């Protein structure tokens, strides 16, 4: 531990410490968790020359205010929105130097849901089962950040940032989720085609556990109607269809097992998109490859 830290002035709606999670414990009921948009956390970490898995802050919809205790270097990635160092506007995906006492402030995000703040040296809270991540389903890890928290910053890595800026394309207006068939696709009538044809909207009861969608109800085949599924292992991106026929797409804090059929699975390269959809957004499913 060092004498550098981030002092939390306002946490915004929800700010969590996240790294790349705690794989390897699913058999005892502990899920992977970690940054919902792992690609964004990794990018922010690379910008400050951290190990990609260093712990940073995951900020829901902006609103975070932190003050540097000692000189710290940070970078923002993920959901876009205005940001300031004291009163000076600053950009995302850029290396930002904060002198001791400088305040970093995130405005309301304008696209996406979760912004990541990486800090050179990483947020150095104690690990739980090998990770600093907060798992909201299992209630493991440090829990939501609160005003007044002083988050210790770890020792700086040996390397120095090699670029000042990483250009990232603006996110598309409509989110495409590429999927492959899941283990129980055949329980439903023509389910991949119906997922592709349907208009799906993200409901407000969406969180790190799952993105819940509403649209045309998916119907089982006559053979599979009323069939029970013993619980089985789940993965990030699994598209599960409960009895109401409305798909649930599991996120990083998903339960380790589930008892409803999984009809499709979101491709790995689109997991970050899944973390950035907002309630009210329209999403579409694409079978196989979609634009990257």
């Amino acid at each position, binding site marked *: 531990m060092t004498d550098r830290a981030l002092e939390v002035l306002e946490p915004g709606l929800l700010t969590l410490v996240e790294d790349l999670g705690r794989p390897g414990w699913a058999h005892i009921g502990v899920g992977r968790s970690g940054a919902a948009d792992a690609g964004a956390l990794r990018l922010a970490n690379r910008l400050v020359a951290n190990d990609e898995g260093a712990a940073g802050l995951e900020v829901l919809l902006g609103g975070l205010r932190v003050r540097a205790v000692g000189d710290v270097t940070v970078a923002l990635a993920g959901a876009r929105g205005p940001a300031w160092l004291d009163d000076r506007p600053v950009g995302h995906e850029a290396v930002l130097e904060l002198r001791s006492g400088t305040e970093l402030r995130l405005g309301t995000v304008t696209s996406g849901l979760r912004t990541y703040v990486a800090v050179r040296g990483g947020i150095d809270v104690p690990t739980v089962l090998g990770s600093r991540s907060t798992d909201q389903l299992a209630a493991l890890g440090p829990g939501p950040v609160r005003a007044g928290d002083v988050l210790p910053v770890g020792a700086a890595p040996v390397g120095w940032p090699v670029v000042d800026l990483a250009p990232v394309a603006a996110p598309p207006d409509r989110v495409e989720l590429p999927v492959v068939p899941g283990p129980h696709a055949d329980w439903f009538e023509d389910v991949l085609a119906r997922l592709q044809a349907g208009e799906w909207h993200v409901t407000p009861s969406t969180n790190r556990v799952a993105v819940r969608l509403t649209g045309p109800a998916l119907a089982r085949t006559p053979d599979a109607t009323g069939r029970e599924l013993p619980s*089985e292992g789940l993965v990030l991106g699994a598209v599960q269809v409960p009895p109401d026929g409305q798909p649930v797409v599991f996120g990083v804090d998903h339960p380790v097992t589930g008892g409803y059929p999984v009809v499709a699975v979101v491709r790995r390269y689109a997991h970050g998109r899944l973390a950035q959809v907002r309630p009210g957004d329209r999403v579409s499913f694409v079978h196989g490859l979609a634009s990257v």
Partner: protein
Amino acid sequence: MTDARAPRVVPYGDDAVLVELPGLAEVRALDDAVRAARTTDPDAAGIVDQVPAARTLLLRVREDADPGALPVERWWAARSDRTAEAEAREVVLAVDYDGPDLADVSRLTGLTVDEVVARHTGARYTVAFGGFMAGFAYLVGLDPVLRVPRLDSPRERVPAGSVAIADEFSAVYPAATPGGWRLLGRCERTLFDVHRDPPALLQPGTHVRFTAS
């Protein structure tokens, strides 16, 4: 000759396969075989999580590994139906049999309360799989006479340490949670502790006995 118990490997996204098996005994055998392979077999090096359940074993791999390349059939062929490591580990849990559902279980089974306790302590259980919550273990081996359905409507709060039964399973709740199983008693042991190695007292394959305290 085909093996009627042979696993069926189903693709499950870019990072995993779901291995479907006829039942719990086969899941236990393959789960143990894969766990053993992970210490010795380079082909298992990409596995980061394995999740046994009632009729399936989920194998999830690292991002740079191909789940379709896992030699599941080879591990199945190398399995043992009785593994030495699992045989060795038995946990004995002392239980205060004063649960709020004892009278209902007695009525549903036609046994006296003492007989319910005798049947519950008389069996040797095995952890079939986890899930539901951290440290929760589905125990099989319950006396079939004690098979009772879940509550019609779940309790909003089941206290930590509650010893419960439902259908073919018994379990101990590691922490307070809503739950619909029938509560027979209480156990003082800590089932899950992140500062302990291993954190879960009961892991897939562990044997369990209950004693009345």
